[in-house]
């Protein structure tokens, strides 16, 4: 096997390894659906059904339609406590495990709050005594749109946050092999044992550099996918550091495509006895610009940074 093929194979192995590492994050999701009815069996529209993950304590909600039907999509597998509420009606938490079937059907029966058989009925908060003269929310002139709950938007926000958390973590992890790839780049032309310059890259250095590059590329695009496919929130014009974060993606994104291509072309030129020339000779420069833009985008989304973070405030 030629050095070229071995290098390519090493990069592919790194890519596959990384893909397998991140695959569980893209794993199967589950849907919880069913009907909410009252004790007489009548459908209850506009009831809020909440599925709370036992493991993460995250809650996912849905509202029933006019037929009392609800559906909570994109749930991760595991144990959930499902509860429902509609005005003065509520249901105790029901334990459900989402594991085998992709869609789990659960019918929820509501009873008046505080009724017997509702061990999980929440205690009412004891506030100040109600005063008939006290102003109410309706006295303040807010629109219905402002005061009404939007469970669909909450579900989108939850999904968005989950995806962006993964984006953030993977983004930080990606910075490690990216830095290592930059460091190992010049080593492909390191001085030999007796001090002479090695004009031909050594197999080991090149393989390592290519493997790191492959790992970085795979992690980078996996990271990017979590931001690209995160749900969009309508009517929400962007401002602040996030604008720089996204603008810099237009630099490091193309850079992450271009860098490995130029690296491969430069290697081919060296392999055929030529000194890298033309665009391939810019492989290192493009890599540094890409990494710098990547670092700047992390700083942008972290701004303003409290630099003396070790000091007690």
């Amino acid at each position, binding site marked *: 096997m030629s050095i070229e093929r071995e290098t390519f194979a090493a990069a592919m192995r790194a890519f596959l390894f990384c893909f397998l590492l991140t695959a569980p994050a893209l794993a199967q999701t589950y849907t919880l659906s069913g009907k909410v009815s009252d004790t007489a069996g009548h459908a209850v529209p506009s009831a*809020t059904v909440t599925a709370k993950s036992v493991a993460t304590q995250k809650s996912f909600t849905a509202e029933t339609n006019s037929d009392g039907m609800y559906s909570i999509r994109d749930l991760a597998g595991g144990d959930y406590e499902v509860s429902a509420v509609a005005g003065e009606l509520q249901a105790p938490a029901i334990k459900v495990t989402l594991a085998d079937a992709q869609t789990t059907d659960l019918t929820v029966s509501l009873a008046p709050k505080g009724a017997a058989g509702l061990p999980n009925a929440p205690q009412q908060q004891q*506030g100040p005594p109600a005063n008939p003269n*006290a102003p109410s*929310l309706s006295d303040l002139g807010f629109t219905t749109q402002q005061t009404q709950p*939007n469970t669909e938007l909450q579900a989108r926000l939850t999904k968005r946050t989950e995806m962006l958390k993964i984006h953030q973590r993977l983004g930080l992890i990606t910075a490690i092999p990216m830095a290592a790839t930059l460091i190992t780049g010049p080593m492909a032309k390191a001085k030999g044992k007796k001090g002479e310059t090695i004009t031909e890259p050594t197999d080991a250095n090149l393989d390592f550099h290519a493997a790191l590059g492959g790992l970085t590329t795979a992690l980078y695009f996996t990271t990017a996918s979590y931001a690209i496919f995160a749900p969009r929130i309508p009517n929400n014009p962007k*401002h602040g550091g*996030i604008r720089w974060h996204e603008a810099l993606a237009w630099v490091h994104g193309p850079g992450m495509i271009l860098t490995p291509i130029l690296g491969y072309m430069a290697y081919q030129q060296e392999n055929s006895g030529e000194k890298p020339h033309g665009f391939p000779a810019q492989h290192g420069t493009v890599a540094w610009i890409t990494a710098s833009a990547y670092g700047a985008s992390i700083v942008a989304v972290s701004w*303003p*940074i*409290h630099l003396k973070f070790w000091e007690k405030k």
Partner: protein
Amino acid sequence: MKPSFLFGLALAVSAAAPVFAQPDTQYVLQQSSLSYHMSHPMHEVDGTSHAARGKGICHAGQCDFLIAAPVKSFDSGDTNRDLHMLEATRGAQFPMVQVRTHFAESEIQASTVYADLEVEFAGQTAHYTHVAFQRTQQGSAVRITGTIPALCSDFKIDRPSFLTVPIKNEIPVHVDMTWQKQ
């Protein structure tokens, strides 16, 4: 009974009537600034809302005030952070933050007003007792400033994290309101 006595009694009753049947006094929130402060090892962030509305009704010497603001009206200077806060505080499901308080009308005149607050936020209700607010008279308006010592845990909020490090539990809310007596 002498007519002059009856006339005198009627005069006294009519003179005293406004005292016993005082009309309600109302206060309306003219302008406000509500700011939560969030601490993270790498950040010190304030999110501010100027969208609060409020009303106070004083009846028979007792006053009830309600101040409310849409959760999504808080702006920290970064859309991404605000959406994260909106998600963490369940702001789409519970879109309003509401503060209620009740005290005697005579207490409003003091330079420092101590209020018991009932705060409804993120689907939870928390009570804060004896919160001090500074009162300044500005012409016909009254300016009230103070800080509500709120905690994320008071409202069962999963603390938002950045770079995998969560923010501090304390999210004090600074209040600066100008009320106009109607």
